């Protein structure tokens, strides 16, 4: 579909065989990153006691993420707040900008979400090993398992651990792509049914747009909260 096409903008840049050209995908990533930076800059510029709207929204977002981290990962995860906050904001803004007409949805490509998920996965593994050393491997050995079953359970635990980045990335990508495809399909129905029958799919597509905005927020939330949960497993062994 045309809305998922990636094309080059400007000259082709090739560095040692790697194609590093600027694409529309990179353009929308830059756009959402600048939008976050500008918004939070104006939100925190003049710190009023009675906040204006921009300040209110940025404070709400801050509190939302701070509460999420302290609820799921405890006080030990406080140093990782900047990382999780930027992750949440980036996914949220990419999803939301994708909802605008003619915009490109960065998160509807699995390579983008997979890179983010793999980064989280590797970072969490490194944090776990740094904090606990080789004792971190004990997350693969649950407590109170009979010795005969231990090899089997350990293999299952390892598969479960390795499935984390896959489920994290596939969830975000599938939700965004399916949503946009569904909107496109219903939009196509409106055209093909014409003035007489087109009103029903049109109303559906209005409702779906609302649902998609909800999904865009929820997926960003789920992405961030799962990062917190994985971080919790790495910081506090055995719960």
């Amino acid at each position: 579909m045309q809305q998922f096409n990636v094309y080059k903008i400007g000259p082709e840049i090739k560095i040692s065989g790697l194609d590093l050209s600027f694409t529309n995908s990179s353009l929308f990533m830059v756009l959402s990153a600048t939008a976050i930076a500008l918004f939070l800059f104006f939100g925190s510029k003049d710190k009023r006691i009675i906040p204006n709207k921009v300040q209110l929204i940025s404070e709400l977002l801050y509190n939302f993420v701070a509460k999420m981290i302290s609820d799921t990962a405890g006080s030990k995860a406080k140093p990782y707040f900047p990382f999780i906050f930027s992750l949440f904001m980036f996914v949220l803004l990419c999803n939301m900008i994708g909802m605008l007409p003619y915009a490109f949805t960065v998160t509807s490509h699995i390579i983008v979400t997979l890179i983010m998920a793999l980064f989280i996965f590797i970072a969490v593994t490194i944090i776990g090993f740094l904090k606990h050393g080789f004792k971190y491997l004990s997350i693969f050995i649950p407590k109170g398992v009979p010795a005969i079953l231990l090899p089997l359970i350990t293999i299952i635990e390892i598969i479960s651990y390795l499935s984390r980045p896959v489920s994290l990335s596939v969830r975000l990508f599938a939700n965004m792509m399916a949503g946009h495809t569904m909107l496109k399909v219903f939009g196509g129905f409106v055209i093909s049914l014409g003035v007489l029958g087109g009103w029903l799919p049109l109303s559906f597509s209005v409702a779906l747009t609302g649902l998609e905005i909800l999904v865009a927020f929820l997926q960003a939330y789920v992405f961030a909260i799962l990062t917190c949960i994985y971080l919790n497993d790495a910081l506090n062994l055995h719960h």
Partner: protein
Amino acid sequence: MKNQDDFKTRLKIAKNKFQKTALNEDEKGSFMGNAFKLGTELVAAVGVGTIIGFILDNWFDTKPWLIIIFFFLGAIAGILNVIRSAKRMQKND
């Protein structure tokens, strides 16, 4: 000095109140987020298990066997994942 002590106690009371309200707030968004989570959790583990089985099969030249075993192990891991997140959801309630 007395004023400062007074302020400190008031701050403590306010902080307690804030924490209590923060705990009592129900998170309406989170249950839908959790519902979206469960499906992919199951599928991803099956996929990862199958891929591991495929790679190991290519290594050891035992064509269909390891992929079958690891498919089922992946399914078990997926169910385990779902049970874990369901437990986490119940703890939050």
